[in-house]
């Protein structure tokens, strides 16, 4: 068994060897290194052909038309292009945007920037299970609302939002609907028609493709307009200029093609491993799953081990590559804003670990993880004054803490 065991697939995934092999054919002199925008020779034509095949493969995974795919540098750029592009284009119609507090920073920080430009933004609170309440969403809409952005799958807790239900509310009002699908593509079925989204952000490196490449789905029927954020040679029908990175694009295309072929069997296998992990931890006292377990991608388990601080737990779990909702490393000392938005108290938010499993995780990896957690949680709780107080029957909420 290779250690540390990688259980952070929502942060990034290794490139699938089949993808890497494909990419290598688009770099060197003996490969297709041409500029896809070169119209005057075969080097350009071959590169363009590869790019268009990849475009078709990406489109196929989300049931879109290839013409609706715009290449970007990744989901962050896609989110920026979607939000700023739509807001700027439709600002004469209205200047109100709705999103959710548990969105990725690529959405929240972009929304903040739009606020600085004079747009007004409503940040919805999710329900305690992480899902958006439709009535609350509907109540937040105004006559001047032009854009709603709700992520498909949350990166920390893995919950799946009901995008189809949201679009049913938005469609009759003519409000543009964007969704960040960086964490859902290749993990759950994404059908842009069924979900009713107008704009959808995609990333390659969460789906066993390379980093530095992503895409934005831009609906054509009815047509959604965007103001370009990157100006230049007018690539990607003017929406995103810049020479296309052929090797990255074919990598994303191959990764998405494989995802489409293997998604169903992979999801089944990952559900099994996730359940094995959850079962293995269920006999530890004071363990809480963060986020809805039913509406959730197979590979995610976010758990709070009460009375054990997340960062020290990560230190104890140095044989595992996982991430924590505790942000003691940052100057702010703020725990995960996602878990706080669910209404989790500070202790639980500070005590959370995100396990995300993927294509190369094995049952042996999970078995080892369960054993290690039992041992380390026990050790850290022996060190924890909060655990001692809990065992003595003291209600921690009744304690007057000397905050610092």
């Amino acid at each position, binding site marked *: 068994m290779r250690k540390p065991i990688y259980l952070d697939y929502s942060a990034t995934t290794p490139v699938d060897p089949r993808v890497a092999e494909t990419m290598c054919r688009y770099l060197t002199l003996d490969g297709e290194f041409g500029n896809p925008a070169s119209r005057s020779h075969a080097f350009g034509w071959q590169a363009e052909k590869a790019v268009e095949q990849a475009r078709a493969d990406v489109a196929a995974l989300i049931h879109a038309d290839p013409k609706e795919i715009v290449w970007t540098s990744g989901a962050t750029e896609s989110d920026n292009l979607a939000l700023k592009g739509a807001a700027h284009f439709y600002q004469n119609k209205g200047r109100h945007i709705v999103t959710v507090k548990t969105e990725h920073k690529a959405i929240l920080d972009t929304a903040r920037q739009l606020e600085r430009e004079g747009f007004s933004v409503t940040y919805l609170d999710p329900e305690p299970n992480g899902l958006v309440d439709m009535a609350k969403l509907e109540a937040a809409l105004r006559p001047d609302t032009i854009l709603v952005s709700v992520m498909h799958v949350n990166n920390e807790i893995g919950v799946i939002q009901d995008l189809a239900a949201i679009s049913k509310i938005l469609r009759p009002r003519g409000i543009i609907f964007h969704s960040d699908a960086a964490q859902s593509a290749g993990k759950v079925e994404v059908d842009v028609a069924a979900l009713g989204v107008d704009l959808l952000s995609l990333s390659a490196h969460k789906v066993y493709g390379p980093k530095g490449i992503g895409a934005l789905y831009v609906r054509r029927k009815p047509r959604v307009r965007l103001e370009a954020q990157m100006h230049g040679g007018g690539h990607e029908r003017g929406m995103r200029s810049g020479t296309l990175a052929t090797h990255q694009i074919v990598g994303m295309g191959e990764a998405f093609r494989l995802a489409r072929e293997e998604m169903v069997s992979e999801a089944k296998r990952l559900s099994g491993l996730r359940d094995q992990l959850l079962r293995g931890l269920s006999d530890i006292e004071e363990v809480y799953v963060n986020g809805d377990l039913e509406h959730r991608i197979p590979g995610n388990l976010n758990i709070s081990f009460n*009375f*054990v*601080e*997340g*960062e*020290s737990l990560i*230190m104890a779990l140095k044989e595992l590559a996982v991430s924590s909702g*505790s942000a*003691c*490393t*940052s*100057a702010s*000392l703020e*725990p995960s804003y996602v878990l706080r938005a669910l209404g989790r*108290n*500070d*202790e639980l938010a*500070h005590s959370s670990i995100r396990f995300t499993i993927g294509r190369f995780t094995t049952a042996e990896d999970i078995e080892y993880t369960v054993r290690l957690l039992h041992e380390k949680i026990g050790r850290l709780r*022996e*060190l*924890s*004054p*909060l*655990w*001692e107080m809990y065992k003595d029957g003291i209600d*921690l909420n009744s304690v007057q*803490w*000397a*905050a*610092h």
Partner: protein
Amino acid sequence: MAYGTKVLDHYENPRNVGSFDKADPTIGTGMVGAPACGDVMKLQIRVNSEGVIEEARFKTYGCGSAIASSSLLTEWVKGKTLEEAGAIKNTDIAEELALPPVKIHCSVLAEDAIKAAIADYRKKAGRSDSANAA
């Protein structure tokens, strides 16, 4: 987050973990921090009749640096008078453990903990002295 070797040593092999009886008049207890901030330290000292700390125990909920800061402190205060122990500065702890700037607050918390433990002991001792006098 990369930790220094001294932090790792204290984290892997914490010294003097445990608890004394809070009600014992020779024990001073300091509990500082808050779960909301991600760290809580409990530091206890056993003080002899000469005002010298004979033993110390700690329990800490917090990151590796917080655990290391309190572990180190229990080693340092042993054999010191209350005055000497109360003079330990957070900068001494931070320097010894080579804490990075974002972890300085862990050493501040450790200094607060020993001060709180000493204050608790003195409060109890004062009360029991006056009880003896009466």
